[in-house]
């Protein structure tokens, strides 16, 4: 029983970590809290579904295609709405992304309707480790998370653009002073964050349901995770995601299923009281 719960929590935790990755990356580089991130995730799921229906291909062929489109979409949103207020106060970018959240949410309802849809991964069956049963789609969710984390690390630490991302994250003015095109780097961060959101959204859509209201929970969970792991901390997002996955599954099955989200939020608030910069955040961030 407990082993099964831990396996379930690892799956949930991987999905949460995947949701938080793009969100935390964007905050790290551009210092923007993207309230529209959950809606991007939802658009990612719908784009994947549309690509599957339109091109008559399977989930795994449609996903990279949808990731590209959502990356472009994310950059477009940045250029139209966020870039004009980038040099303003943090409050302004927060308000603008909240506005984008509203618009995207309603657009999705108008385009696709409120009816939840099924998205078929095309893979069935389950694997058994002793008493623990994990279905293949759930295993794939863990695998995708690991793969994307590896790619993200490779990009951040091996590629030139990764160096630029880290430079802008550390000191935007300094990066500008040594001749980096900060605007282009932030554009790239939006593209990567959009692609990540698409992957997370498509997996959630395939494992649970694809519907316009699916963006709310991942957004809130991403907040909690990045607060636990430290805002802008990629490794912290993975640890935070897994922690929340475990906490939620265990409180859900042993204390109260209805109140599991309340426990998650309480954990976050207590963590913040103890360490105001996040569990893994430095003392003076």
């Amino acid at each position, binding site marked *: 029983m407990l082993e099964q719960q831990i396996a379930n929590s690892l799956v949930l935790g991987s999905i949460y970590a995947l949701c938080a990755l793009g969100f935390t990356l964007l*905050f790290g580089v551009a210092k923007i*809290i993207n309230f529209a991130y959950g809606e991007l995730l939802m658009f990612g799921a719908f784009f994947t579904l549309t690509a599957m229906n339109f091109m008559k291909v399977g989930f795994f062929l449609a996903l990279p295609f949808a990731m590209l489109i959502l990356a472009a979409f994310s950059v477009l949103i940045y250029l139209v*709405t966020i870039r*004009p*207020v980038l040099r*303003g106060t*943090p*409050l*302004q970018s*927060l*308000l*603008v992304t*909240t*506005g*984008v*959240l*509203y*618009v995207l*949410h*309603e*657009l999705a*309802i*108008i385009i696709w309707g409120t009816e939840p849809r099924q998205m078929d991964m095309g893979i069935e069956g389950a694997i058994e480790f002793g008493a623990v049963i994990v279905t293949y789609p759930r295993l794939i969710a863990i695998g995708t998370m690991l793969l994307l984390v590896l790619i993200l690390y490779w990009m951040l630490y091996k590629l030139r653009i990764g160096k630029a991302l880290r430079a802008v994250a550390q000191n935007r003015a300094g990066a500008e002073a040594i001749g980096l095109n900060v605007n282009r780097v932030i554009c790239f961060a939006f593209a990567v964050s959009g692609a990540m959101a698409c992957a997370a959204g498509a997996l959630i859509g395939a494992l649970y349901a694809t519907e316009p209201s699916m963006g709310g929970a991942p957004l*809130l969970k991403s*907040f*909690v995770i990045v*607060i636990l792991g430290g*805002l802008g901390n990629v490794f912290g997002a993975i640890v935070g995601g897994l922690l929340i996955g475990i906490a939620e599954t265990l409180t859900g099955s042993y204390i109260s299923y*209805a*109140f599991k*989200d*309340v426990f998650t*939020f*309480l954990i*976050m*608030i207590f963590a*913040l*009281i103890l360490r*105001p910069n996040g569990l893994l955040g430095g003392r003076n961030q």
Partner: protein
Amino acid sequence: MKSISLILPAIFLGLLAPTLSEYQIYLLSLTLLWSILALGMGLILGYAGEVNFGQAGFVAISAYVSTLLRTKLGFSFWEAAPIALATTVGCAAIVGSITMRLRGPFFVLVMLAFGEIVRLILSNWQSMTNGPLGLRQIAPPEPIFGMNFQSKLSFFYLILAVLTLVIIAMIRLVNSRMGRVFVAAREDELLAEFLGVPLMKSKVIALSTGAFVGALGGLLLAPFLTVLSPSQFSMFAAVDMVVMVIVGGAGTIVGPIMGAIFLVYVPELLSFSHEIRPILMGTLLILATMFIPSGLAGFFTPYIDRFISRWKTKKASL
């Protein structure tokens, strides 16, 4: 002088109301109720410079506590009101003393989480709150001092009276020493603290005062809508208040009221469909933030000033 110029519209509305149709009175009541809610948010957003996405949680606490006291324990509206207000302000003080230590984005996120906690408790504590179905058939306030609140018109007068009192109290507050302390903390935390401003205390007071005004709105909201359900108090409700403050003009008293009129009265009057309304809200929030950061109030002030000065010179030349 300034308070007189704000009381005059209230008297005008009061005299106008009996001549209006029931639908118009409903619409006006809704606008005034949202004005109260927007003023509560405006205090925190405009004067303390923080976005409180948990404001809907405070409104919900007040609305639910007052209604539950009435239905479960048989309190009258007037007995339940002070208890509900005190509960809300108490919650705000506790939450504030925890969250106000957090800087920048953390405050926004924790208040959002607070709002969600309230909403989740309301929708899952079935035996008390009736869950997502909510509380229904909430009676109008009991008669007091010979006044009866059965009719829509009399309830409108009650809302109008509360709004007028809130406006007068807020004008006094923002012009008081405490109001200037809020602004000092908003403009430069470090400098304010250096000058001996009790930063934490003033921020907690700002949050609690904003919650108090929101709670007043919540008290009236329950009997006005006659139904309460957790979905009314999602983050979107708080964002609606934020939009009103930003579109109307943050850091002013007129701003949130103008925002409420512009976003409640005008869309209903032009009978926008309910699908379009959130898109309208979102687009307005983006455009107002980008192009008119001082909101409608700030946008029109120069024109009004020019008009007044022109009028004055004309009068002088006569």
